């Protein structure tokens, strides 16, 4: 407890887009409840704070920490360990912290090819420049965070109390979790067991989707821009759109499919699913209407990037965690295989 008697709150933005930070403000007037019930001690987006301030706090003195983003470099990891030590409740907040998210897709490539894309590809004035963790200047030695070979989820680095998926988590789910924590602090409610997934459902997005579902026979997978007409009442997968609903955890209210866009899987794997991509891949392949390898391959051509489709938000949390190249030295040879898969 702080001097004013309020429990302490912290939020940190690691390797992610920062949308989760905005999502917290998107709970509208509920943010006043957060302010009324918590003292914000560390939230770099919202207020000035130094890492030393956090280091000076007694261990376990922060009641609730929301950690968004994955662990991409040594700074992310340092903060994850520091906030774990200082926090009673550490929440992996959003898809990146829970499953790696979009930045986790970089696990398909080795760091050097990522650097080449960023420093040699887009920019015209930094050809050949690479970030150096240590650099000598006349004034002394400069340090920047070390870039890791692969992105890890928060739970792959430190123990996590709760997981709150979503890209970003939906406002009504955040508000419900805030309410629950406040009630628990006042002894009016009990927190779920550590390791629980909070602010989400237990079923799949399909279960929340109002579109009609029949027996599926897919003759061709299509990209949404290639369809002339989308039936507003029929399952998108049945219309040939790769919709990630069958493997994705419920909790969003099936927002995307309701709006006519396929689910992209930001809430991560449904209850009990060990590997999200494998489950989704299974769901897609099983409904293909074709029995010969030629028919099936023709249908699969409609999914040009299978790994990106089935692991869009969860590659870093998958069984394989990433591609072979991510940690390989003989990268060039592997890149060829990678390329071949794209251009088949």
């Amino acid at each position, binding site marked *: 407890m702080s001097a004013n008697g309020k429990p302490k709150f912290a939020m940190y933005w690691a390797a992610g887009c920062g949308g989760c930070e905005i999502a917290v403000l998107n709970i509208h007037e509920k943010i006043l409840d957060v302010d009324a019930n918590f003292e914000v001690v560390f939230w770099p987006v919202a207020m000035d704070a130094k890492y030393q301030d956090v280091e000076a706090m007694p261990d376990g003195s922060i009641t609730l920490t929301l950690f968004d983003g994955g662990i991409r470099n040594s700074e992310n990891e340092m903060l994850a360990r520091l906030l774990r030590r200082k926090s009673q409740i550490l929440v992996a907040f959003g898809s990146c912290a829970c499953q790696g998210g979009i930045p986790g897709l970089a696990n398909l490539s080795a760091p050097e090819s990522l650097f080449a894309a960023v420093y040699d590809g887009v920019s015209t004035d930094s050809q050949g420049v690479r970030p150096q963790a240590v650099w000598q200047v006349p004034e002394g030695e400069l340090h920047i965070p070390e870039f890791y070979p692969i992105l890890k989820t928060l739970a792959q680095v430190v123990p996590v109390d709760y997981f709150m998926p979503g890209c970003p988590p939906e406002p009504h789910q955040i508000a419900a979790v805030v309410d629950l924590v406040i009630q628990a602090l006042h002894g009016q409610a009990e927190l779920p067991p550590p390791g629980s997934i909070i602010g989400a459902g237990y079923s799949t997005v399909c279960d929340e989707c109002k579109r009609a579902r029949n027996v599926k026979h897919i003759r061709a997978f299509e990209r949404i821009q290639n369809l002339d007409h989308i039936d507003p009442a029929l399952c998108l997968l049945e219309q040939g759109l790769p919709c990630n609903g069958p493997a994705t955890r419920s909790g969003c209210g099936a927002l995307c499919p309701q709006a006519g866009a396929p689910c992209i899987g930001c809430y991560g794997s449904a209850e009990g699913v060990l590997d999200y991509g494998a489950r989704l*891949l299974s769901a897609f392949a099983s409904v293909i209407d074709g029995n010969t390898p030629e028919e099936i391959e023709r249908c699969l051509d409609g999914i040009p990037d299978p790994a990106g489709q089935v692991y869009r938000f969860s590659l870093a*949390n998958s069984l394989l965690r990433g591609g072979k190249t991510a940690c390989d030295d003989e990268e060039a040879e592997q890149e060829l295989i990678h390329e071949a898969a794209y251009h088949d």
Partner: protein
Amino acid sequence: MSDSFEPILIGFTCNWCSYRAADLAGTARVKYPPNIRLLRLMCSGRLDPTFVLKALASGADGVLITGCHPGECHYLEQNYKALRRYLLLRRMLAQMGIEPERVKLVWASAAEGVKLAQEITDMVEEIRALGPLNWPQRHNGAAPHADEKAVKEGTA
């Protein structure tokens, strides 16, 4: 690659065909290398791609999936589902940089003990030539956190 590398293969067999083919190879004293660990499923259609990924992530150098010939599935058409999943999985594994030789699908009826033994022998030699996959060392081993726990505790 050193000569001492002995690849570890995981083989998934169907109760109604390939498992019996392996049995037949045994009773007929047809030899095949001991590098493969055979697991019996009721049908190749039971093969969740998760099994393949888990085998590779846990240190297997290759995975052999076997099932009944097309049209001969004990459960009518589940081997076609296995084929579709395999073909999509193969595309995805290629993106991951995993050589296509490491995961194979082979049809083997209960009478094809010799054929199955030959397929296993060929695959072991192909993977021996490729070298170890070493996935656990590559990505620090550990499996995903939250859902692994759920599956272990039977809440799945």
